[in-house]
């Protein structure tokens, strides 16, 4: 048994001991449901329609059988036309019928059965025994794009062409003892057939059309195009009462073998199709003008030929689109290169590529002995990514098969996200179709995967009473505009999350829980709901969901454990609470949630979601905009028209008790926010004034004429927050219409930035001094302890000499110094968060000022290291690789490699391996100089 074989996707047995002809199988869309069906017809006259895409793919054939009807004559051949009609060829008549889908009352989705309606029937004049039909072919003969005609070939070699219910042509091919296969070549508008003289003959349709009688050609002229060609016809009296004309062939290619089957394919990367002819022992490739281009001897007896478009994974979306557009237009979906699939009599399948190389060999997948000859192979483009082969064998088994050792369902899964970018209606339909077909299989194979999703409703006052059910949540998210602004689409391989925050308690409650201060602190809280749901059958008993929040947010519970997947219909939800720690300005609003779980194969897997905290966690709206007392001010220009502040910050307006009308009026031009931290919070404690605290405020003013936004604030960190929020909201707003380009014309606020750098440095120096003092003091304390201990153990101890007093004082000193360090650490944290904000602001202003690309700015941002707080996490300041050291080093690296390289275009300098550790700089001069140089170098004006 071979390892390489075709895999069965679906199969059924037709009837009981019925016989089938070579053309008794067709596949395509035949009804109004738009789903692919397999049509089969037996010589006993049974016409059956199957649906291979049953959702649960039951082996029970009764469910997939949609139509079974007995026609009054044997079925020789079946074809599915473009107009979703079935052409049925009987020995003495041609029947064209359509199907309409009927559904049960109970289920509205699934088609339960089909109804067959005969459209028209052509009876052949069977006066002579030779006039029975042999085969037929469909095509848009004569270049008409809107209709398909049917050509019927009879046993005595004469052909009749029908256009709907009108017979338009009747001709006789020359030298015909027995009819051969016939195929229509669209690109040449001709028929190729194999004649008994072992050669391929080609008949132009125009030559056929021209040689008709005048009255018949007149009818054709209305529909098709006619070219005046020289008369090639010889009138012969035929044994029928009509006169038939014998047409001479356009060209004849002598291949020396009887042809079994024809195919039209794109071989060898040319734009013109070639004719692929399967001989008894050889495969021939003939160009449309009759030149034998290539041949390949076969080691076996071939029986059937099938042309299949290549479906490499790279070309997959393109193929899908083409399928969608061409599915109804031509029977052969033409891609760049086609593969040729040849079935052999010994149940062998060869797949040849465009260079006639054998790229795949399989045993037919038929486990029964070799008595089976596969003969009817059709390529359906409709099922899935890979083409399925529908195979009917002579015992009446219909199989849908695919190539490959892996199930097909794995292929479309990977490509799902790529297609979702711009789904047109047809493609969406395709996707749903494919999902329907692949979903059961997916669950079988890649059994389980966990999804987590974060979602929240709009601001709610009485959160306790709010019952969270999924449906309402959907409604809320559909109606609320904030969704757009806070939606972060994280495309994580094939899962798309949308993250929303549910915000409540915008009126701060009083709480004593604040860990940083003794006095009562107003608390601002938000919560986010994380939804965890899983696909697949197995449950994940222990999924750890961890939320990684920025440092200014306090979370009482960071990790939760949940069981997912017990009830698959309902997602599990977890609620996380975020508390804003008041004195610290926020450097980032981004929160990441990660779920860790073990798959069924006990591999550790992750699912993640990112969400953005709301602005309201940081500030509240002021009823009247203020424009005075603004120490810091920047202006951003945009290339789109100005947006009213009310529109942009609609969610913030909901927080206040003001009526929306007044608010709307007030917030048209300008909007002010009051931050939860005060100006004193931002200053070092040494120079803090005893005067009443003033909350930091920020104001946004929009200028309609210049479509620019001016942002002013009393503190630098607040400026960053507002800038960030404004830019994010603007980008979201213009996302659908091509994005917005923001520019910043003024010089960069380097001096203010350097001030925050110096501040941070100073706090670190202070901490260092305090730490060294504590070190000295504790050393002294230990020495005293030791001496006392020696005296205690000594047999005859000397006098204590006030050592006890000294020890008590040192202990007091130690405690004092420790509290000083605690204070200094708090100071450092304060300055670090300010520095983080300023760094972020500087980076984004650099982005807007120099118009850098997103990639470039991400590079610079990673070197600038805005996440200052996380660098200060060590227990001791000494020995810490703080922000200054790291930033200094990375600035030097940036200057050496990235920025200088662009100018010199030399080979990249490898980072020198420096053994030296990062030393704490005594001054920040070099760092400041380097940042200034970078800003200078980035300037395109220079």
């Amino acid at each position: 048994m071979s390892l390489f074989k075709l895999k069965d996707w679906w199969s059924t047995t037709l009837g009981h001991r019925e016989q089938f002809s070579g053309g008794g199988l067709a596949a395509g869309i035949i009804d109004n449901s738009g789903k692919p069906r397999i049509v089969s017809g037996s010589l006993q006259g049974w016409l059956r329609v199957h649906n291979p895409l049953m959702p649960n793919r039951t082996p029970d054939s009764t469910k997939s059988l949609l139509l079974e009807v007995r026609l009054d004559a044997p079925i020789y051949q079946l074809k599915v036309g473009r107009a979703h009609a079935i052409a049925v060829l009987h020995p003495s008549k041609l029947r064209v019928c359509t199907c309409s889908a009927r559904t049960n009352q109970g289920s509205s989705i699934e088609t339960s059965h089909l109804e067959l309606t005969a459209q028209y029937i052509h009876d052949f004049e069977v006066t002579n025994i030779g006039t029975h039909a042999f085969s037929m072919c469909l095509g848009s003969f004569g270049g008409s794009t809107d209709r398909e005609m049917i050509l019927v070939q009879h046993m005595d070699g004469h052909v009749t062409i029908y256009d709907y219910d009108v017979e338009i042509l009747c001709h006789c091919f020359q030298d015909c003892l027995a009819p051969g296969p016939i195929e229509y070549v669209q690109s040449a508008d001709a028929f190729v057939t194999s004649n008994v003289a072992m050669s391929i003959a080609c008949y132009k349709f125009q030559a056929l059309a021209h040689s008709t009688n005048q009255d018949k050609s007149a009818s054709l002229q209305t529909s098709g195009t006619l070219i005046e060609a020289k008369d090639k016809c010889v009138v012969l009296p035929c044994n029928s009462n009509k006169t038939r004309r014998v047409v001479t062939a356009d060209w004849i290619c002598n291949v020396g073998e009887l042809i079994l089957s024809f195919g039209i394919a794109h071989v060898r990367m040319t734009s013109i199709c070639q004719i692929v002819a399967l001989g008894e022992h050889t495969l021939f490739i003939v160009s449309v003008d009759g030149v034998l281009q290539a041949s390949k001897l076969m080691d076996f007896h071939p029986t059937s030929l099938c042309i299949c478009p290549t479906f490499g994974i790279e070309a997959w979306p393109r193929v899908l689109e083409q399928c969608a557009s061409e599915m109804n237009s031509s029977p052969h979906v033409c891609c760049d290169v086609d593969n040729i699939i040849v079935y052999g009599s010994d149940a062998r399948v060869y797949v040849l590529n465009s260079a006639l190389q054998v790229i795949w060999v399989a045993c037919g997948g038929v486990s029964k002995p070799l008595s089976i000859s596969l003969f009817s192979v059709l390529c359906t483009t409709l099922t899935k990514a890979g083409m399925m082969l529908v195979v009917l064998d002579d015992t009446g088994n219909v199989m849908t098969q695919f190539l490959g050792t892996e199930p097909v369902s794995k292929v479309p899964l990977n490509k799902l996200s790529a297609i979702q970018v711009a789904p047109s209606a047809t493609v969406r339909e395709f996707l749903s179709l494919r999902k329907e077909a692949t979903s059961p299989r997916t669950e079988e194979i890649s059994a389980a995967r966990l999804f987590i999703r974060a979602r929240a409703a709009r601001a709610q006052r009485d959160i306790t009473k709010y019952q969270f059910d999924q449906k309402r949540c959907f409604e809320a998210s559909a109606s609320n505009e904030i969704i757009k602004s806070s939606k972060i689409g994280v495309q994580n391989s094939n899962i798309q999350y949308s993250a929303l925050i549910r915000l409540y308690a915008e009126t701060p409650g009083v709480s004593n829980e604040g860990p940083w201060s003794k006095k009562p602190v107003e608390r601002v809280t938000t919560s986010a709901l994380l939804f965890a749901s899983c696909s697949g059958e197995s449950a994940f008993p222990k999924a750890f969901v961890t939320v990684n929040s920025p440092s200014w947010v306090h979370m009482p519970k960071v990790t939760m454990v949940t069981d997912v997947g017990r009830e698959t219909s309902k997602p599990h939800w977890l609620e996380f609470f975020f508390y804003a720690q008041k004195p610290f300005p926020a450097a980032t609003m981004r929160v990441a949630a990660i779920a860790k779980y073990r798959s069924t194969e006990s591999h550790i897997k992750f699912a993640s979601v990112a969400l953005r905290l709301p602005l309201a966690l940081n500030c509240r709206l002021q009823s009247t905009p203020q424009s005075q007392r603004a120490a810091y001010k920047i202006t951003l220009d945009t290339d789109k028209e100005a947006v009213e502040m009310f529109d942009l910050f609609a969610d913030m307006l909901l927080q206040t008790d003001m009526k929306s009308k007044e608010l709307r009026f007030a917030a048209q031009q300008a909007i002010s926010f009051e931050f939860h931290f005060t100006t004193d919070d931002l200053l070092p404690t040494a120079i803090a004034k005893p005067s009443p605290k003033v909350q930091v405020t920020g104001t946004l003013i929009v200028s309609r004429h210049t479509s620019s936004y001016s942002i002013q604030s009393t503190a630098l960190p607040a400026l960053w927050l507002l800038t960030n929020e404004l830019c994010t909201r603007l980008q979201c707003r213009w996302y659908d219409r091509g994005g917005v380009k923001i520019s910043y014309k003024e010089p960069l606020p380097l001096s203010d930035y350097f001030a925050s750098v110096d501040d941070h440095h100073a706090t670190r120096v202070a901490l260092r001094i305090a730490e060294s003092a504590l070190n000295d003091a504790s050393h002294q304390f230990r020495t005293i302890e030791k001496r006392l201990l020696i005296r205690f153990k000594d047999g005859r101890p000397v006098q204590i000499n006030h050592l006890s007093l000294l020890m008590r004082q040192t202990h007091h000193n130690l405690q004092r110094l420790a509290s000083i360090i605690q204070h200094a650490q708090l100071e450092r944290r304060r300055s670090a968060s300010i520095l983080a904000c300023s760094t972020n602001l500087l980076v984004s202003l650099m982005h807007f000022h120099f118009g850098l690309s997103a990639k470039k700015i991400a590079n610079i941002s990673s070197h600038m290291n805005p996440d200052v707080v996380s660098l200060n996490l060590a227990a001791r300041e000494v020995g810490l690789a703080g922000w200054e050291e790291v930033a200094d080093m990375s600035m030097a690296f940036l200057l050496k490699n990235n920025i200088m390289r662009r100018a010199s275009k030399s080979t990249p300098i490898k980072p020198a391996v420096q053994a030296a550790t990062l030393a704490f700089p005594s001054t920040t001069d070099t760092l400041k100089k380097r940042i200034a140089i970078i800003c200078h170098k980035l300037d395109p004006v220079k």
Partner: protein
Amino acid sequence: MTSSDLLWMALMHFRRREHDQCTAICTEILRTQPKSQAAIFVKCRALSSKTWIDDTELERTGDTDLMSEDIAVSVMPRPGTSIAHPTSSSMSGVVNQYVRPVSVCRITSQSGVSPTLQNVTMAATSEGSYLDITNLEFLEFAHQTAMAKAICDYLIYFVRNIKQALRLCEEVLKKKTSLEDWWWKCRFAKCYYRLGLYRDAEYQLICSLQNQNMALNVLGLSKVYMRLDQPNTALKVLQKGIEKMPEESHLKIGVARIYEMMYATCRSLLFYKNALVLDASNIEALACLAANYFYEHQPELSLRYYRRLLQMGVSGPEIWNNIGLCCFYSSQLDMALDCFDRSLRFADDAADVWYNIGHLGISMGDFHMAHQSFKIALSLNQSNAEALCNLGVLSLYARNIKIARSYFISAKEVAPTLFQPHYNGALLAYKLGNLQDSFAMVSSALRVNKAHVDSRELKNNLEWHIRAL
């Protein structure tokens, strides 16, 4: 059913390669309508396709057979075990028998040996031919190209009356219209070839190639040149064909075969590999490469090719036997025994496999098993000279000198072309002091294989002894 329906059914059966049913239906039509041209045509086609054989391959029979197995045997490597020393080459003989699994896998040789002139007449009389060949009016058919072609194939493939076919070809080619038809020239050449008129066949094939470049003709021409013993010309023809038809793997296989016959192993391998690029599932190329690696002492590589063959579904005693040998030589003795087991399960004639198992026993040192295996091999095939020879050596080791001598003698009787029994007998006689017999036997060993060094040494020794006497 009307006759039209019957004809349709006949065509359908023909399309499905159900030739017997097709012929039966045609006969039925002809009973009612004896003049039905279509029925005659379809019946001709059905009969000739049923008995069709792929005659592009070179037949192995005949006096100019270049692929005789015994020549191949003489270049076989010797396994280097001391005990098996005298019997070594018999080992490789077994492998060689299975080198080309062509006979198993290719359809072509299903119909066996290609017909030679002698059995043509027999075939013609044995099957009931429905056309009276002697009364055929060729002139009548010559005007109907289609019918003529069908009848020509019928004559060549089914009736095998080459002379009549030749007459038909001559008649047709008299017409001006068919002068340009390569097919007739190809058939002409086929007839000439069958009749042994190689030069005429060559001329016709060259003419045919000028009309239309077909791979069939190229292969036919190369075959004619091989028959004329001009392998280089055949190679040239094939190379030219490859230039024009680079996608045809059969031409490359043809080149590889000729190189193989000329003992240009490297080039032969190269072309087999080229053919595999075009058709990665070509069984012949895979088998040849595998056999070649085996003889080049790379049994592991050879094993890979055989495994590929197994994956492709080629199964049979030969392949399992070969895999077993590969495993044996790559010292995977347990695997080897398993493979031989499987081979035994499939095999009809298991003597060779048992012989190989015996060999395995010798190299494992399990003389008892070896003895048993050789005995079984002998019981299955009385004339297995290698087994006899090895049994002789084994009984020599068991100090049964008389039995050993009788084994050697019977081995000599069974296969006089094998030199090992001669040498072994000579050695035994020399050890026993029977110089006269020893000299006679070593002389006959040297007559069979002149290059055998040990025999020559023994003969020198004997000559020295005799001279001293």
